[in-house]
């Protein structure tokens, strides 16, 4: 029996995994991947089965824990946003070397157009780099179906599988047909070849040769995959390769009746025979893919025979931002203006009385009080530099605070402030949220403590992971002990509440600790206004 449900792409993938015998989910929140873990946490069946679903401190710890579960023969997923895969890159690349025992899906959600991210990196390059098979759903149903297929592939090929999501699929809802019954979870069982999990050079060399040899099998799986297919068309003036959600935009442009032959890609490595067939029967090739020109680069190498390849590298598809149905239609219209059935819409009027409405810190948010007091304290230090970090408080860059000088990656505030102080910068401050601090700030703080760097580290603690919607923060209630435990001088680990009425006190605290020639930590604390409201209404 199957039931129709209305699900986000993220939710469909999570439910698919639960139905396919998932034993553990591991993740750190990050847009647009957060809802994968949240679905596992909220699902009734998941609770009944006791599927692991506690948040991890960061993506690296999440992936390693998932790998540990896979070692013991059970099915696990780990989910993260694209830049989270950078944090988890070490275990990710090496998990292709150890291989998987229980099915292991590494889910990375890319954010082209940077709706809520600092870059547009395309996770598929990581999969290629690690020589790992990949799945890329084009719609919510495929996201659901790929969870089971991914586990099966992973166990059949003895390797983790990378599942690439993108914002528009992660955060778009559609009707998905789901199974009512779930598969049994795997029993605990150990790897057939325990040796390959010890990546010492002698073992690694062996394993690397095997992984290279296995590539052929991976390609074979792609050739016969239900997610890769050739759809024959009558117009051979163009052959189109469309991956993931780009396929939908192509169908939209022609109302479902594309006159050209199309290879739809949903599984990697690329199905070489299928693509060769397309190339041989088409005068030129157009590549439509969300993200960076990944397939286009490979087509240029794998299949180059002098035929023109149109895409992002050739300049025929816009290189930055996410694809849209309009961009795909425009590209085809430029290349083949006479294409049969290409739909034309007349764009509506350009609006005249519209201005931008940038996001801002909420009214009643404690970060506002931290920035207000910090700016007041820094008035007399025109050369002060404040190194920022990733979270709601990054919005301190905008009006009215204009308070931070950098935002690079999770945890970089502390280490950059330290490096700047090493260079002679004074005052050098870091501002970081509580969740970001435990994600990647603690090790940097240890470096600064060990050298008693002359910096002020501000932990703006709102007791949650705010930007992603208020998930548990792993350091809640422990921040002072963590700092002191790492070796910070207790006299310079200061705590205050981030409240408007304490403005002068917070300002004076900043001034005192700026004047102290060594490492200080100021923990300024107030619960996130969004989670506070939710807690208040839950109590009612």
């Amino acid at each position: 029996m199957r039931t129709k449900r209305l699900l986000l792409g993220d939710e469909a993938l999570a439910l698919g995994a639960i139905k396919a015998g998932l034993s553990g989910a591991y993740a750190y929140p990050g847009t647009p991947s957060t809802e994968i873990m949240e679905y596992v946490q909220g699902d009734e069946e998941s609770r009944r089965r006791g599927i692991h679903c506690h948040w991890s401190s960061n993506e690296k710890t999440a992936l390693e824990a998932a790998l540990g579960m896979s070692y013991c023969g059970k099915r696990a997923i780990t989910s993260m946003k694209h830049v989270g895969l950078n944090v988890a890159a070490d275990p990710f690349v090496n998990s292709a070397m150890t291989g998987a025992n229980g099915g292991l899906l590494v889910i990375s959600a890319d954010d082209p157009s940077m709706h809520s991210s600092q870059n547009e990196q395309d996770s598929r390059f990581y999969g290629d780099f690690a020589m790992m098979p990949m799945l890329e759903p084009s719609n919510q149903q495929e996201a659901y179906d790929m969870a089971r297929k991914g586990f099966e592939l992973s166990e059949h090929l003895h390797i983790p599988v990378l599942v690439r999501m993108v914002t528009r699929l992660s955060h778009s809802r559609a009707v998905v047909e789901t199974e009512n019954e779930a598969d049994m979870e795997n029993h605990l069982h150990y790897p057939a070849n325990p040796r390959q999990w010890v990546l010492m050079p002698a073992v690694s060399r062996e394993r690397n040769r095997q992984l290279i040899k296995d590539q052929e099998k991976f390609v074979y799986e792609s050739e016969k995959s239900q997610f890769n297919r050739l759809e024959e068309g009558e117009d051979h003036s163009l052959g189109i390769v469309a991956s993931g959600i780009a396929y939908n935009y192509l169908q939209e442009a022609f109302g479902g009746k594309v006159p050209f032959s199309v290879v739809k890609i949903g599984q990697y490595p690329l199905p070489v025979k299928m693509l060769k067939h397309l190339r041989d029967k088409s005068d030129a090739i157009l590549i439509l893919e969300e993200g960076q020109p990944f397939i286009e680069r490979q087509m240029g190498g794998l299949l180059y025979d002098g035929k023109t390849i149109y895409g992002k590298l050739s300049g025929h598809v816009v290189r930055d931002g996410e694809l849209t149905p309009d961009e795909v239609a425009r590209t085809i219209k430029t290349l083949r203006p006479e294409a049969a059935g290409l739909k034309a819409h007349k764009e509506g009027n350009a609006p005249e009385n519209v201005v931008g409405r940038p996001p801002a810190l909420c009214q009643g948010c404690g970060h506002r009080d931290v920035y207000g007091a910090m700016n007041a304290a820094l008035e007399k230090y025109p050369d002060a530099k404040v190194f920022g970090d990733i979270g709601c408080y990054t919005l301190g860059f905008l009006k009215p605070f204009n308070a931070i000088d950098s935002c690079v990656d999770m945890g970089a505030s502390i280490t950059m402030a330290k490096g700047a102080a090493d260079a002679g910068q004074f005052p050098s401050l870091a501002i970081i949220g509580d969740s970001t601090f435990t994600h990647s700030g603690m090790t940097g703080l240890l470096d600064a403590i060990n050298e008693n760097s002359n910096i002020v580290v501000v932990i703006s603690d709102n007791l949650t992971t705010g930007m992603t919607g208020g998930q548990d923060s792993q350091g809640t209630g422990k921040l002072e002990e963590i700092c002191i435990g790492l070796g910070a001088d207790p006299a310079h680990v200061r705590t205050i509440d981030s409240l408007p009425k304490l403005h002068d006190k917070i300002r004076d605290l900043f001034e005192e600790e700026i004047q102290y020639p060594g490492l200080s930590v100021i923990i300024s604390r107030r619960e996130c206004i969004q989670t506070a409201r939710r807690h208040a209404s839950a109590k009612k």
Partner: protein
Amino acid sequence: MKSDIILAGVGGQGILTIATILGSAALADDLYLKQAEVHGMSQRGGDVQSNLRLSSKPIHSDLIPKGAADMIVSMEPMEALRYLPYLSPEGWIVTSTLPFVNIDNYPDLEAIKAELQKHGNVVAFDMEAVAKEVASARSSNLVLLGAASPFVDIPQDKIEKAIEGLFGRKGPQVVEANIAAFRRGREMALQTK
């Protein structure tokens, strides 16, 4: 049946609730549906929009092409204008006229209203004022949903069922208030249409 709708507003105004209700009504009516929404940074007081596509046939793209939307449904007048390039020439704008001013360069409200009226098919009134008459300001988004409902080919009772389904666990009073807001919005639009 095909209805391509752009839902617009400012983070926190409740446009995703409208999407949720129409979504579950569409599911109950056995329609195809795609609804793309925005999470993350822009929810912090920035402009937010959702593409809602309903159809009796399978839907390809999660996003609505420019010039193809049948309707812009907005909680805020300037936000309604932002998506004009997506509206088809025969499309309708259903919007609240109450501005949400959280920026210091907000354009002249009269100019915004005039620009809205330039597009012939418009239903525009202060949704919050109407919501206060029949329920409370919190139901403004349900007034908007009501005002949009005559333009969507889903039976009224199915939408009301979906409202009940969404608010049911908050008690019968909350359901009644939201149904009242929905019906009042619907009446207002039917007078204009």
